[in-house]
């Protein structure tokens, strides 16, 4: 957590407003003095770095990371399709891992670094051009999920072979059936990255 967050009155007793240095201290106080449960609701204040920009947000416990990125931050590249972890269209890269934002609680993401399709496009990543060149989309709804997953793969493995690409993208569904184009596009992006690197 950022230092200024710790200054926020995180550890105030909700019953009598007594202040405590630590959450544990507050807890002991609530139990001992007010003899009550449930424990006071912890603060939903989180800090996220999304595409290089830092955001401080107050989130409700039940908000998913998808809701925060799409609805609150307005980054509409992250798409909701199944909302059950079964399609990959809501994929974002969090601390290097391609994860499903629909199955992640935002309140558990304090301090995380996140990349979305918007950030990948802004950075001029060759995946964007190669996806266009290879007609890797029809309706395009699933595409940001594929792009983020492919980017996470290339970050880890800059020279994947076709089967490694298919395996990495195996959690992304496309209703339009664009599957055969994706390995081609990712292979081309990998080649471009390598050329850029050797220049």
């Amino acid at each position: 957590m950022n230092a200024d967050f710790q200054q926020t009155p995180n550890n105030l007793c909700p019953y009598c407003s007594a202040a405590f240095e630590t959450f544990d201290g507050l807890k002991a106080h609530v139990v001992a003095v007010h003899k009550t449960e449930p424990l006071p609701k912890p603060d939903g204040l989180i800090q996220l770095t999304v595409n290089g920009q830092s955001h401080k947000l107050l989130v409700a416990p039940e908000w998913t990371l998808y809701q925060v990125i799409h609805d609150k931050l307005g980054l509409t590249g992250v798409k909701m399709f199944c909302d059950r972890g079964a399609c990959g269209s809501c994929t974002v890269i969090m601390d290097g891992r391609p994860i499903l934002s629909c199955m992640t609680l935002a309140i558990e993401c304090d301090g995380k670094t996140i990349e979305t399709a918007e950030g990948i496009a802004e950075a001029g990543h060759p995946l964007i051009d190669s996806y266009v060149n290879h007609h890797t989309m029809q309706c395009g709804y699933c595409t940001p999920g594929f792009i983020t997953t492919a980017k996470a793969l290339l970050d880890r493995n800059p020279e994947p072979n076709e089967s490694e690409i298919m395996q990495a993208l195996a959690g992304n569904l496309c209703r339009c059936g664009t599957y055969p184009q994706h390995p081609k596009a990712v292979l081309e992006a990998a080649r471009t990255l390598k050329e850029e690197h050797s220049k």
Partner: protein
Amino acid sequence: MRSFEHFNARTMEEAVAILGRYGDRARVIAGGTDLLGKLKDEILPKYPEALVNIKSISGMDYIREDNDVLKIGALTRLEDIAVHPAVKQHFGALAEAAGRAASPHLREMGTLAGNICQDIRCWYYRYPNNRFPCLRKGGGRCYAIEGDNRYHSIFGGTVDDGCYAVHPSDTAPALIALDAVVRTTKRTIPLEDFFDVKVSATTVLDPDEIVTEFEIPQSPGKAGSHFIKFALRKTIDFAVVNCAAMILIEERKVASARVCLNAVAVKPYRAVKAEQAIIGQELNESTAEAAGESAISQATPLKDNGYMVQLAKIIVKRTILACA
């Protein structure tokens, strides 16, 4: 999702204390890939009042080789297990099982503890808004027994002989075949004894008990292990039948064998008969076939799942052969 209290626990003691205060009204959340689906669909008769996040506790995500045992922290992600060189080399069944579970994204999120603690997937039980308040939710009847039971148990039911929902985990049979134990905040349990079939529970854990670590003995001698999963699609789908085996061969004969099926019974199903059939034998097509046959000798399929018996037989055979 409806709301709940949420705690990012910082220590295991804190997590246990919060769980203790809420009794059975709170749930642990690890990767969340199983739990959040249940909350979104509101399948539970009692919506949890609080979630206790344990990902905020540091130092629970590791794979270590310590004197003859492999230790895996409860929060280790399935993907990290699947690609770990030591796991791939010495505990092949576990690497395979972790690498075949769910989808790549879910493996980046889902933890090993969450995988063995996950809930059943019976489609009546999981139907949104608690549409089928069945035996497993404390209700009066099982809907699968008269309904569509193509993915249900071929080895009988429980909860007063009524629930036929299979245990869906891919890693559980591998951990059982590898003779793993699980450590919790209260005790150490052999993985085989970890599962239970109760109303709203699939494990023997108390409401305030948390899995902390797995320990797998280094296989004696040169035991080989393997895992095979049959599912409708290669990824995302749960197993229709899966199987893990660990087999030690000495002087060309099978000296010891552990074979475990899952997704075929209400708990992971150790195929003791298959083990007995191959111990002392040479491992070849015909002995493996006989082991497959023995594995299903006690099967009692329901009206829609007879095909699973054939699948189980052939998968036991192939898994055993792959251990050689």
